[in-house]
């Protein structure tokens, strides 16, 4: 392995950015591919698959054998609001492989009794996200209904290019939210990335069913990331 390649790979991994290490098993030459880099041909298709699935594999391409080692940051879900939906969402998301953090400054809601075994912050999103910034391998679901709590986090999630941004509320509620986010400086393209009303349309009625819809939408966003925005203006 090239020492510079190892150093670069570790930098990417520390920064929670995805990278695929491509090694030619014939001559030992290696290189780093970052998400969004163009790689041509069959090798390019295999690299795209590695980014999407996170699976590493040996592939034959261009008459050679390459090993693709996929290094994807662990995805996580940040939930704004220690509400009834979150109580169902936190354990389900953890089982699905998405560690959850819940942020809600209302200390009556954010109690360990209501949320056993969950990383819980009874603080304002502004304070928590300063310490633990959002990134493109983080999903954010804002479910408080309270603009004072949700709005800052939604704007931060759009700016950090979170792979999923969802916001609870009716179309009418969302229309008002859009006006506030525009006033905060969000662009129309950014706002179009918000999933609102939140969750896949499965006719969810109870808080637990809404949690299923949100988790399904998060997984869909993660597994299709980079596919829908190809060629779109960043």
């Amino acid at each position, binding site marked *: 392995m090239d020492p510079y390649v*190892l150093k670069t790979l570790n930098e990417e991994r520390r920064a929670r950015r995805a990278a695929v290490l491509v*090694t030619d098993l014939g001559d030992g030459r290696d290189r780093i591919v970052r998400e969004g880099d163009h790689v041509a041909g069959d090798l390019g298709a295999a690299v795209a698959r590695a980014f999407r699935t996170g699976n590493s594999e040996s592939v034959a391409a261009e008459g050679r054998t390459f090993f693709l*080692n996929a290094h994807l940051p662990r995805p996580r879900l940040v939930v704004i609001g220690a509400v009834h939906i979150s109580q169902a969402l936190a354990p389900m998301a953890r089982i699905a492989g998405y560690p959850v953090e819940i942020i809600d400054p209302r200390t009556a809601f954010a109690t360990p009794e209501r949320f056993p075994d969950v990383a819980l912050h009874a603080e304002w999103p502004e304070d928590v996200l300063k310490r633990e910034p959002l990134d493109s391998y983080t999903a954010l679901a804002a479910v408080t209904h309270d603009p004072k709590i949700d709005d800052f986090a939604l704007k931060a999630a759009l700016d950090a290019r979170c792979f999923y941004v969802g916001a609870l509320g009716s179309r009418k509620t969302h229309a008002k939210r859009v006006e506030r986010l525009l006033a905060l400086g969000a662009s129309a393209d950014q706002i179009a990335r918000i999933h609102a009303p939140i969750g896949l349309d499965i006719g969810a009625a109870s808080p637990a069913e809404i949690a299923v819809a949100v988790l399904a939408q998060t997984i869909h966003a993660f597994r299709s990331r980079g596919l829908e925005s190809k060629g779109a203006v960043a």
Partner: protein
Amino acid sequence: MDESIYLDEARDPLIIAEGWMKDGKDVAIATVVETWGSAPRPVGSHLVIDAEGNFHGSVSGGCVEGAVVAEAIDVIDSGKARMLEFGVADETAWQVGLSCGGRIKVYVERLG
């Protein structure tokens, strides 16, 4: 279940290999590149080895690490990468086999 979203730098083989390199040590990196059947560690897993035979990480459940370390020291000397194969069907399996019955292919290369 490990739920940390950040690297466990004290135990991460590739971080350790980089540290060894900075300390001026000669280092080999072993990587599981293919598995068949029930293999204990997934494709992409690493074992890193220095010239004194110190190692971190794993390519199996402990069954073949000793053999990989020995080969890695040769790879550090020669600079020439090797592809190793372990499994029950293999002649060497009687000495260093995988008790689970799977087969693995391990690529061993020198760092630098």
